């Protein structure tokens, strides 16, 4: 899947993402009202990744309902990412997106770039449980809750989402960062800080998946710097059942979805796996894996 916020603007471009090899697509995070987002610069490339502060630009849920219907007509499975400024807004938007025909919902509890305005929900376990439960009451669709790495204890937040009725946890959103221009002597992003993504965050995001997988019984969706089939396998072995890919589109183009899928297939063939589920979380059993079971990995 494409990570939320990456190319989720229109049905036509989401169709292209799907045709490029993604198993499903995720919309931009949709809120109750249209938002223009932050002024530019909204993205700056940094060592091994990108730092962005788009500021949740979106056309608002009323407008997006039609887009979802159009995507469904194209035969593309669509997960609607969404957010709100209050428990009631989260619930209202979720209700409208469900009615529009989305296949699943991803509750964005973790945008790092609107903290002053909206606060970051994923920082507070009690609120995560309350909001997840309120959304749960409004929809029967599969509900994913996307968490932030910018917290002290991600396990407690994941458990709160599980208690609230989440069907899966997406781990994780971007890591908060900053980039400074030394000649102009100021932060580059108009929002000053932004979310770091790409290979730079992979070990941190992978650790989040590892911890969340230990803490909850529901499936985990991995996200953070996945660029190759090898990265994907690492996430799966850490406990992820599905994956989101974003920044790799900047460095590898849209073909990256197929490249990653091919890499996973190659590893499975080399190691005698017939389904992803056989591999999920295997690395947690490291103490019982003998050297005899180790393999030579992948050929690509």
């Amino acid at each position, binding site marked *: 899947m494409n990570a939320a*916020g*990456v*190319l*989720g*603007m*229109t049905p*036509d*471009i989401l*169709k*292209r993402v799907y045709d490029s090899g993604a198993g499903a697509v995720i919309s*931009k995070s949709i809120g109750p009202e*249209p*938002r*223009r*987002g932050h*002024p*530019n*610069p*909204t*993205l*700056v*490339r*940094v*060592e*091994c990744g*990108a730092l*962005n502060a*788009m500021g949740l*630009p*979106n*056309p*608002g849920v009323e*407008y997006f309902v039609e887009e979802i219907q159009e995507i469904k007509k194209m035969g593309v499975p669509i997960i609607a990412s969404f957010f709100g400024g209050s428990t009631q807004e989260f619930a209202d938007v979720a209700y409208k997106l469900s009615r529009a025909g989305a296949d699943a919902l991803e509750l964005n509890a973790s945008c790092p770039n609107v903290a002053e305005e909206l606060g970051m929900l994923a920082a507070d376990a009690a609120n995560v449980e309350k909001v997840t439960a309120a959304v749960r009451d409004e929809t029967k669709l599969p509900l994913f809750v996307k968490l932030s790495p910018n917290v002290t204890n991600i396990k407690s937040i994941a458990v709160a989402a599980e208690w609230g009725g989440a069907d899966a946890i997406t781990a994780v959103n971007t890591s908060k960062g900053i980039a400074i*221009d030394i*000649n*102009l002597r*100021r932060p*580059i992003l*108009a929002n000053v800080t932004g979310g770091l993504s790409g290979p730079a965050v992979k070990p941190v995001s992978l650790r989040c998946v590892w911890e969340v997988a230990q803490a909850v019984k529901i499936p985990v969706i991995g996200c953070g710097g996945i660029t190759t089939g090898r990265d994907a396998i690492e996430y799966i072995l850490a406990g992820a059942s599905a994956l989101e890919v*974003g*920044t790799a*589109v*900047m460095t590898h*183009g849209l073909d990256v979805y197929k490249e990653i899928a091919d890499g996973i297939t190659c590893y499975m063939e080399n190691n005698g796996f017939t389904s992803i589920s056989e591999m999920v979380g295997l690395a947690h059993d490291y103490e019982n894996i003998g050297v005899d079971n180790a393999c030579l990995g992948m050929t690509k």
Partner: protein
Amino acid sequence: MPGNDEIRTIIVLDARREAVDISTIYFKDELTQTAKPGQYLMVWVPGEDEVPMSISTINHNGLSSITVRNVGPTTEILDSLQPGTKLGIRGPYGNSYEIKGEKPLIVAGGSGAASLYPLVEAFIEKGIIPTFILGGRSSDQLLFEDELVDLLKEKLVISTDDGSMGYSGYASGYAALLMAENEYDHVYTCGPELMMAKVFYETEKHNLPIQASLERYIKCAVGLCGNCVVGPYRVCKDGPIFDTEMLDTIREELGVSRLDASGIKVRVNH
């Protein structure tokens, strides 16, 4: 990381007024010297905004330029810069014009001449002198007229909306006339989208290939955010130059709709 994504600081070396609301800003930047005709830069006015700008001069003795029409708060600042001002740039970005044909017709409307000037230079380097329609609202709005006359002589023809010079009417009307009267083998256009749409329809009548430079609200410029999409294409990465096949794919949006900053479709009004 690839160098073109890195933000460099440039110092404005010269700012030349082209028309009452258009000026050209000259600077030195090694990567811009290697740009191809039709590519753009993201130009950062610190504290204000970052906007996409066509490269209008590529490496004239080390100097490159962007040409700005004042259409909003950020371009107003760029249109009134003094030499010595510092700006941030990243790029060059996007695809570029492919140099094709022996008898090309180039149709420029208003500040659209900016991206087409390096294309003219590329053709001349190949020994081909293209026919160039320079269109503007009136005779004092004709971008790079003197430079183009030097390069193209009688192959430069003028059209003005108000009839103050050359053909009286829109550049697209003049283009239709020339396509009917002459044999061309490739058409290039940059300017107001409504004009480019008309030029595209005209090339279809004559079965001529075309390349057009499109403009959208570009945010990330690296193909990630999707704010600049037209049909299945990202203007920032798959464009800004659209060929016949791409234009055919986006027919329903060309000259009709674009996305605003929030992703809502709004009408293209120029």
